[in-house]
């Protein structure tokens, strides 16, 4: 009974059901609390449904949906920006729970933090992360390398002081 023309909708739904918890966790890393994170995921998937006909299939569907969710989470975090551009990566107020449980990851700049979450938590490959965040693959690689370097440096400081 599934209509052929809604196959994309089904794929989005399957992705939603199978990866919901991951989407919420990453959104929580952006917005800081569960309620807004869940809201962002719901809004992100709603946007994906509305725009599903515009998805050309030239990249992974999951990456495309991640972009919707990440965008929705960013919108939930910030007041509307006057003439905001697409590439806004200011550091948001750090979510308390993130600070408590993931102090080193939490203190990364937002772009690095997001890349880390999408890589290690959501399990996306570099290309998918690039598509989700609308950045170059090289930027993903650089962000991860910088994040690693920051964490190693912080660890070395901890050890040196300890």
């Amino acid at each position, binding site marked *: 009974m599934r209509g052929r023309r809604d196959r994309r909708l089904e794929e989005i739904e399957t992705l939603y059901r199978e990866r919901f918890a991951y989407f919420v966790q990453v959104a929580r890393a952006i917005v800081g609390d569960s309620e807004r994170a869940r809201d962002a995921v719901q809004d992100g998937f709603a946007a994906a449904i509305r725009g599903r006909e515009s998805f050309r299939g030239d990249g992974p569907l999951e990456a495309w949906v991640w972009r919707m969710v990440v*965008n929705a989470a960013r919108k939930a975090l910030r007041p509307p920006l006057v003439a905001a551009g697409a590439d806004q990566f200011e550091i948001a107020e750090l979510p308390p729970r993130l600070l408590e449980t993931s102090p080193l990851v939490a203190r990364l700049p937002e772009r690095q933090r997001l890349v880390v979450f999408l890589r290690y938590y959501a399990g996306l490959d570099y290309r998918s992360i690039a598509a989700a965040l609308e950045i170059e693959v090289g930027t993903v690689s650089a962000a991860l390398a910088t994040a690693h370097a920051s964490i*190693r440096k912080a660890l070395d400081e901890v050890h040196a002081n300890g």
Partner: protein
Amino acid sequence: MVDADVVIRDELEALSSGAPDERPDWDDVLRRAGDRSPRVRPRRLAFALAVVTAAVLVATALATGIPGRLGSWVSGTPGSPAPAGLQHGFESSNRAAYAAFPAGTKLRLLLSRTVGGTTFSLLGFRNGDAYCLRLVRTDHPDAIGRNECLRAEELSNVPALVVGDVRFSVGDPAKNVNGVYGFADDTVRSLLVERLRGQDAVAVKNNVFLSLRSVRAGSVQDHPLPNPVFAIHARLRSGGTKNVPYVSASFPGGVVPGGKRPTGPSYFGRSSQQSVPGPAKVTAPIAHPTIAWLKKHEERGKPLPPVRFGNVVFGRVIQPDPDDPVAVGIAIGARGALCDYAFAPLAPRISGGGCGTWFQQGPIRLGTWEVAPIEHFNGFVADGITHVTAFLGSGRIVQAALRDNVFTVAVSATELPARIVGYDAQNRVAGTAEMLGNSVLRPCPTPTFTKPVGALPRAKPWERIDLANMTVNGKQILGLSPAAVEAALGKPAVVRGAAQTTNGVAIPELRYGGALPSSLGLSVTFSKKGDRIFANQLFFQSPSLTDAKLGHVLRMDPLVLQHAIERRYGSVYRLYMSYGSVPSFGCNAILARRGRPSGLGLGLDPYRPSRPFLVIRKNALG
């Protein structure tokens, strides 16, 4: 030295372990999307059947408490033996299914209906204490079809019960066939199936009924208004009628109190604070809920078939009730997540499921199932829970089947809300989980205006419209670029540069009169086609909005405004959907421009009745 990779993984795991066990709500996503496509069956799955041990329609009804109620089934020979093609088609599909009925199941043909040129067969069979129906296209006998069963208890307080709502796409050009089917006891002569527009009287034959309608599928820009079933009444042999409990399958659906046709604009709203039955207090909490056999990778049940999305580390399929084919996949997914998978009846592969944290909300974790007249709740319980019971809003209490930490229980949607309770070996409550009640049909609220029209500020340029030609400030805005819109309407209060993105291209939104969705007066949104970005929708909610002929249009009740537009601009617009006439679409109206795809939308958010809205759209029905 500690590797950064390890630190990152440890920290993310710690974050994950402290997170609440979020449950997905696909219906809410669809509501937010305002999706108007035909309802895709939520892949909370449909294994239909709470069924199946013996296969044949034998005269075992006397042992099930239904004697005298489904007379034709008591005899053991309702209808006639299924034609060979239908029988073989079922067997073929059954052999390939993961959740299958016992081999040798014999079907009986209960009735056939031809709708829109396509014939459908309603077949019946018994298994154990369950009564089962299979609805399938007669020319596609080996299709999955719809397969649903119910048990005698579910019919105990009602004269008839819908067991399935269906939608088929048939023909070329495509037509949609939709409707309901179910059981009716011996007291019922016929069923009156009410749709939003019109009603159908359908006869009861062999204690079953089938009501189907065909409608052209249409296209995105020209599709027929939905006309779902919203209420069913049983016409009794003794005279009189009885309302048949039914949760409307329209989307989003709900309950129509008393099955009474709405008298005015309506929507399906949140259910009232109906108390959930059953024990709510946990008296024997499980400190560290887990499933030891799964973590040890013990090969219980059957192997899990391949999963389309996600990486499964280890998974099995468990059938909690040996007399019932309903089965649930249980698996450890990537990063140690606990995953559940469901199987549609007769479907050859996984039909839905999800992964998440293990038992963050207690030792009961609900699984995946389909929103349907008969809902098949399932889930996992932690070690230490020895039995699971469902307490239903209807007052019924149902024992769930439980095996290897997986439980299943079938419940009529009309009996919600419900509480699933897990007990330990000492009959102490170890955990509970709630199932929400159904939405309820409610009248659209009357708008609440605090400021009289005379006290409103003078209309700004972007608040002056002319519905005769869909202009704003004397200019045609739809189709303009963002820069051209600014030139026509002035500088907006807010430009959201990347309100949405399409294939990497940022598409803006212009907001006038306010920054937030709750306070803005006009939101101009855009679409992208090729390299062109153009205005495709103007959403107004400013009280000062003034039409050249109708005046302050957003200081009128939406229904009054709709009538005013029909009277004044009847030559420009045709009414597509009257205000609040399709409750699943909420308190909204749509007027399509004659001879063009553009049009108007108007309405009210029932949860914020102080600001009605008017929308000028490039595609009224798209």
